[in-house]
């Protein structure tokens, strides 16, 4: 039956390099895109339900069983809404701004390994961490542009806040990772995970680095208690005050996708990725690989579970803390996080040198 299908014989005729470098990555990326999109969309529902649980209320429970179809109803509603462009807005910038943060956030998933190789990675890049940092930091342009193009003072202030916040927290975000990179000696995300299963999860030697990373990643994503760029009760809705319909939804998708990226990064850098193993004991990559596709699936589930813990951590923060004030946020970033991150690098460097006198 399958042999008689002409499509398959056509595929068989495609030269091997094209398959390897173009077709397979495309297929993988489309699948990854759909899965990430689904996770991001459904997470909006998870957030509302979990937050509701923390706040002694019910949350959305009307659409479908237990409200499970809410994440389908929301996009439909948003797509059908009128798309309002305020008078005096910079039309092109206003149009392009919601797309800008979304593209890098989704692109990052091309290089994030979510399971043991070779199944769950679209492509492996030997400068993985750098590429992730480079891509995620471009997300801020959409916020600034959107805030500026809306022709609204509250939006402008939101855009300015996001610019300052992202620039300030990009620094400790990057610095906090350097300790991990020095220990592992590789920028490839896959290698970082494999190193951790052989030795120890990086969260233990790099506990300070992890906490800096944790704070910086929340600040990077403009999530509570660092949600100053949108600061509902101060700036109405900050940079997306004037946005409506699907453009508004794109900003939200980008925010949640960026949360997912940062959670994935935290799991890979500090919590052993898809493995539950330390010192080659436990659920290691070779063990998972020996189980074939099932092992890959298990690895993927382990990874997903860890990521979800971080995602719920975001919600937990939102349910617990008041919002920082802008100057206090800057104080925290420049006066505490950056010096601490630099000290962490120094100490890590000295220890790494002492343990490997010959140099890595």
């Amino acid at each position, binding site marked *: 039956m399958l042999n008689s299908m002409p499509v398959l014989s056509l595929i068989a005729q495609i030269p091997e390099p094209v398959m390897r470098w173009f077709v397979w990555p495309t297929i993988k990326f489309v699948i990854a895109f759909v899965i990430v999109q689904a996770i991001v969309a459904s997470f909006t529902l998870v957030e509302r339900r979990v937050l509701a649980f923390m706040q002694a209320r019910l949350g959305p429970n009307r659409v479908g069983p237990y409200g499970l179809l809410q994440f389908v109803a929301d996009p439909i509603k948003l797509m059908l809404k009128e798309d309002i462009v305020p008078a005096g807005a910079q039309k092109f910038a206003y149009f392009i701004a919601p797309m800008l943060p979304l593209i890098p956030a989704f692109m990052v998933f091309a290089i994030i390994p979510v399971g043991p190789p070779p199944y769950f990675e679209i492509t492996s890049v030997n400068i993985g961490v750098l590429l992730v940092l480079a891509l995620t930091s471009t997300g801020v342009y959409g916020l600034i542009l959107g805030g500026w193009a809306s022709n609204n003072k509250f939006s402008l202030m939101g855009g300015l806040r996001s610019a300052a916040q992202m620039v300030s927290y990009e620094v400790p975000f990057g610095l906090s990772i350097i300790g991990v990179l020095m220990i592992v000696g590789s920028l490839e995300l896959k290698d970082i995970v494999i190193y951790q299963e052989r030795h120890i999860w990086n969260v233990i030697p790099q506990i300070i680095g992890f906490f800096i990373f944790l704070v910086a990643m929340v600040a990077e994503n403009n999530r509570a208690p660092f949600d100053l760029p949108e600061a509902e009760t101060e700036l109405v809705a900050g940079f997306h005050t004037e946005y409506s319909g699907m453009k508004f939804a794109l900003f939200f998708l980008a925010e949640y996708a960026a949360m997912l990226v940062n959670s994935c990064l935290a799991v890979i850098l500090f919590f052993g990725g898809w493995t539950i193993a330390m010192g080659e004991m436990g659920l290691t990559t070779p063990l998972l690989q020996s189980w074939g596709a099932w092992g890959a699936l298990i690895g993927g589930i382990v990874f997903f579970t860890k990521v979800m813990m971080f995602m719920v951590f975001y919600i937990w923060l939102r349910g617990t803390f*008041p919002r920082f004030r802008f100057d206090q946020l800057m104080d925290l970033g420049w006066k505490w996080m950056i010096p601490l991150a630099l000290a962490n690098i120094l100490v890590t460097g000295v220890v790494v040198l002492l343990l490997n006198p010959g140099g890595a």
Partner: protein
Amino acid sequence: MTTIDNETMLNVRTMEINFGPQHPSTHGVLRVILRVDGERIIEAKPVIGYLHRGTEKLFENMNFPQCVPHTDRMDYVAAATNNLGFVETIEKMMGLRDQIPRRAQIIRVMLSELQRISSHLLWLATHAIDLGAMTPFFYTFREREEVLDLFEDYCGARLTLNCMKIGGQPYDVTPEWLEQLGAFCDKFPKACDQYESLLTTNRIWRRRTVGIGVLSAEEAIDWGITGPPLRACGVNWDLRKVRPYEIYGELDFEVPLGANGDTYDRYLVRMEEMRQSILILRQCIEKIRETPEGDLKARISRVIRPPEGEVYHSIEAPKGELGYYVVCDGKSQSGYRIHVRPPSFINLQALPMMAKGHLVSDLVALIGTIDIVLGEVDR
């Protein structure tokens, strides 16, 4: 601070922001015109009147019992104290203050203390959410719901209560109601601890409130500020103690005082006031059980026609001193002039002074901490 651009002759340094009247954290329709340098406030000018309904003028064309429901609509989150202030003023005018049956007096105190709790809960909810702490909002509404249920059981209404009559109380309380109230009194301090566990020692909360909008005692008195904002400056002035009305004189409670007069102290003062209200309610339950059932109303004629003259009477509403100034000509059934001294309106005067030099983020903290209700500011 102002810089004029030489070429365009425009003021390029500062920006004017119209904060409200449609803004999520101006507690209704307050409009503040801000002149900001970046995020720092140079000048804040409150603009009011968006909820003006001419209540005082309406009073002049109604007889006194008809006025009572209109007082509900002034401070619409604290209707019972509005009623109390008004009926007491008319009673004072007619010389009935010593004829109100004791049971009615106790019920009045209970209702106004419940109202104080519900008003403070709403203040805490909005104040916390203004500063980005979402969760206390829902927790406080959980308890506020129970207070409103108690009101509903007493008089049928939840918000605009219209629960007091000139000369006494319209309804008696039932033993079941008292039991329900007792259960609430047992539960509420724990809920209070829960709110405080989220805020009081939270470093972010403290950084957002300590030293924000400091008022000295002299300034507060000069501006006529009353209620929790005044007591947070350390001034021991609570009309329930200073000029006791109803049965407050025989009740045992403390007036919480602050020291620094900042937003954090105002927060602490109000939190403690809620706890003190629970103490008062407990004493009231005991007292009302000792009081025999009987008349709830003084013996007065159905037509209320106070003698000629004028009177000012004030009570301690949740937000401060709520005063009514009534002038009667002795011939008609309605007042010649009825003026209200609303605490929100007077307290709001301090906003420009408090906001100067702070950031835009602090402005929402200040609006929250003054605890205004625009229905009362504009009347």
